[in-house]
């Protein structure tokens, strides 16, 4: 068959292949999360919500049994599936060159479906993130990606898994950027977005277009309400600090217990959660139904606060006991209930008009999340995506930012960093990177040389000005500079022009605001780089040498210490 030029695409580059693979990852992750979601519900129906209805004995015992079996699977069969999933995915990015074994996917699926389906107070999102990363890693290995690409493949799958679980593609992308990748990289952003969108499309195909919560219409009734929302932010921040510290203490405590008790912890946690579930069935499992009920003014303010606190305790027990499962859903639950409870109080006592209780539930949802995970953009966009309301943005930003700042002030180590440290891993966070002052060319540059020569200047004239041993900076065109080295000057005919003494290839130009890292990449074999102004690019305002750059880095570390 004759090929015509416009049909023949030729082999795709690795970037294009990576993007195509991202779509495939998104589809696989979406399918997996749909099955995961179905499995959790099926287990709940079979264990807790049988046709005969709930009975107290089953409510107490079933979570313990589920935790026991799931922990057995993790510790004996699928060891790679341990942990919440976020830390493990990050470790895959920074330590294991993107390697997540497929057994982690299977183990996470089975163990977490069992633990969450039987009512343990944990969520499916973190496991979905880990499973997505596992699928991506497996596909990446199957397609023999380069090492650099393999390191990036896990976040692509993580975003797909999280987006599918939450049905919030934007929040998932932001969370992976903020927490898993811990940096903004244009190279991986496109793939992450593609995979997240593909996953969400698949999930909506099978499970419908319904949002996670059906949120009533929200209105900001009075400007003074913003004070109430700020108060919710303060409460969310303080509670999140207490929660994270309690997780750290509990995990530390349980890790010191003998190995033979490793199955006892989750059983005890399951029994306690089941017991709480007799009076507060809403705290069992992920708890989305209860959040939806709270959004529909189902509970009075005191019940909301009680639910929030009980859920926090239940999650603490399950997570501290290392029962497989995630934290996203419980943090949303806790924040929603506390926010709704405080909002309900405000409705009774605030002297100005207040909104419906559902508004406070919605805003509260993000505050505890922002405080615990310290992913402020994720928390804001998640509430926005869940509610599809622009009006909610302002209160959410206020409350979440306050919670985030309080958490940062009182709990210096971010949650996932703390979990990683407990596993003996030191993983970066975007928060820590934000705190490092970036170095720029202007921090390193030296003033422009006093003598800049035209191309037709004679060698003799140049040597007269710069003396022996110096190199001449030559302006070769508007905004272009080259140099003639000392050896070339010495060897050249003194009467000849500088243009004849050396090749005069223009040096790469940099600007003062450019990062020092980028400038160093451009330096190459050249002795210096000319620095010009963006306002007047043809004007030389300085030069930067390798020594200048190293001095700047050395001075910087001395300042940070």
């Amino acid at each position, binding site marked *: 068959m004759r090929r015509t030029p416009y049909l*023949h*695409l030729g*082999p795709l580059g690795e970037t294009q*292949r990576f993007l195509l693979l991202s779509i495939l990852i998104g589809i696989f992750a979406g*399918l997996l999360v*749909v099955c995961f979601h179905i499995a959790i519900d099926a287990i709940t*129906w079979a264990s807790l919500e049988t046709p005969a209805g709930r009975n107290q004995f089953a409510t107490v015992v079933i979570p313990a049994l589920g935790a026991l079996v799931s922990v057995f699977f993790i510790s004996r069969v699928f060891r790679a599936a341990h942990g919440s999933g976020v830390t493990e995915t990050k470790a895959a990015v920074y330590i294991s060159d993107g390697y997540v074994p497929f057994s982690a996917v299977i183990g996470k699926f089975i163990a977490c479906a069992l633990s969450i389906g039987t009512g343990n107070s944990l969520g499916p999102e973190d496991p979905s993130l880990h499973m997505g990363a596992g699928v991506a890693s497996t596909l990446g290995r199957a*397609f023999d990606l380069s090492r650099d690409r393999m390191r990036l493949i896990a976040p692509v799958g993580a975003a797909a898994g999280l987006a599918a679980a939450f049905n919030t593609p934007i929040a998932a992308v932001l969370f992976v950027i903020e927490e898993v990748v811990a940096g903004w990289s244009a190279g991986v952003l496109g793939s992450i977005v593609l995979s997240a969108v593909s996953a969400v499309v698949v999930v909506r195909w099978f499970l419908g277009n319904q949002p996670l919560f059906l949120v009533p219409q929200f209105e900001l009734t009075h400007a003074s309400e913003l004070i109430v929302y700020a108060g919710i932010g303060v409460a969310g921040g303080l509670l999140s600090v207490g929660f994270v510290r309690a997780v750290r203490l509990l995990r530390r405590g349980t890790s010191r217990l003998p190995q033979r008790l490793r199955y006892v912890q989750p059983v005890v946690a399951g029994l306690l959660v089941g017991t709480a579930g007799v009076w507060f069935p809403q705290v069992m499992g992920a708890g989305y139904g209860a959040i*939806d009920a709270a959004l*529909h003014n189902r509970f009075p303010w005191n019940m909301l606060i009680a639910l929030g606190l009980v859920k926090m305790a239940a999650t603490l027990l399950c997570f501290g006991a290392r029962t497989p499962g995630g934290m996203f859903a419980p943090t949303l639950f806790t924040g929603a209930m506390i926010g709704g409870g405080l909002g309900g109080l405000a409705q009774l006592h605030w002297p100005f008009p207040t909104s419906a209780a559902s508004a406070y539930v919605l805003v509260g949802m993000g505050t505890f999340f922002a405080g615990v995970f310290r992913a402020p953009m994720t928390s804001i966009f998640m509430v926005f995506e869940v509610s599809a309301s622009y009006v909610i943005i302002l209160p959410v930003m206020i409350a979440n930012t306050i919670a985030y700042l309080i958490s940062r002030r009182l709990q210096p180590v971010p949650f996932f960093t703390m979990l990683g440290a407990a596993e003996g891993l030191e993983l970066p966070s975007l928060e820590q990177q934000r705190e490092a002052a970036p170095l720029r060319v202007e921090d390193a540059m030296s003033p422009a040389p006093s003598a800049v020569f035209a191309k037709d200047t004679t060698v003799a004239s140049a040597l007269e000005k710069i003396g022996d041993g110096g190199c001449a900076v030559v302006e070769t065109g508007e905004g272009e500079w080259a140099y003639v080295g000392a050896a070339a000057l010495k060897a050249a005919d003194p009467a000849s022009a500088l243009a004849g003494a050396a090749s005069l290839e223009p040096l790469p130009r940099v600007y003062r605001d450019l990062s020092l890292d980028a400038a160093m990449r451009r330096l190459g074999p050249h002795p210096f780089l000319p620095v010009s102004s963006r306002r007047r690019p043809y004007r030389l305002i300085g030069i930067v040498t390798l020594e200048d750059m190293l001095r700047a880095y050395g001075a910087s570390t001395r300042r940070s210490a």
Partner: protein
Amino acid sequence: MGGWGARGLGIARGPLVTAFAAMFGVFALTTFLARWYDAERQRRAERYFQIGETLASRGKEEEAIEEFRNALSIARGNREYRLAVAETLLRLGRFSEAEVYLEELLAADPANAIPNLLLARIAARQGRTQAAIDDYHRAIYGYWPEAGERRRMETRWELVRFLAAAGATKPVIAQLLEIADQAPNDPATKRRVAAMLLKYGPANQAAEIYRDVVRQNPRDAEAEAGYGRAELAAGNDAAAQAAFRRALRLNPRDEETRRELEITDRALELDPTLRGLHSADRYLRSRRLIAAAADTLEECGADPAGLQSARKALTAHARPARLGDAAEQNIAVAEQLWSARPQGCADRDPALARVLARIER
């Protein structure tokens, strides 16, 4: 092959084929699971709903709500379940909760009349008159899933009752006229409208509607009687008398109409202010009016001194020179007598009371 094969994509064929095969396999499995899941969810949701309906029918509303909520948590898009929750909450007086569900129903289907009607009822119970009126109108002009015309008419009547209770007379009249317009061939509805108009609005409009009914249904005794009452309220006693007579011809057993006719007959005999009367007749009627007033007042225990002077005037035998003026004087005396009547006196002679009330106006 062109650029779309494995080589063209720059990917080894084996992994590509395996990946797509796995994807199709997982897709097929997920489709199967999703179908089962969907069917199971529907079944569970329907079971909860049925239990809820059973509980609600037994008056166990609180428990019914829980079951409806369970159904709704599984099938969140189901409007029937959402409506059931809202209606049950409404019956329990939990208005703020009910409103949330109703607003959601409207968000999905703004033209649906049922949520609008329920919101109108909530607003009415909470005293938000304008909001209730707006919601009632949206319900009236919205979409009814079944028995639309009947439900629309019922809603109009509900709005009329609400407006009447709120003392909003003009809107009541407007609605009643709208109802009459919407039911041109429904004599029962038109009679009902006319009866309410008689209570709240100008009697001539009620009379017009009754007349329409009678024109379309000449053998409608109730309409004739109503027409008579409307004409009576409008001050047209002669027309009322004729209507009452026709009503009695059609339904001789209508005792109320018979009483009305008797009163009207007597009033027509007594009334000296009727148009077209000769002055002599007017004079005689004015004397009869004084006598009737005096007799009635005497029965009621009125002051005898006042009655004495009235009776004295009646016993004078000389015929006045100017009968018209004398009639006017007599009417004034009767009016004056009647104005000092004790409580409850008017009930003794309704015809007399009607004539004197008209004279007073």
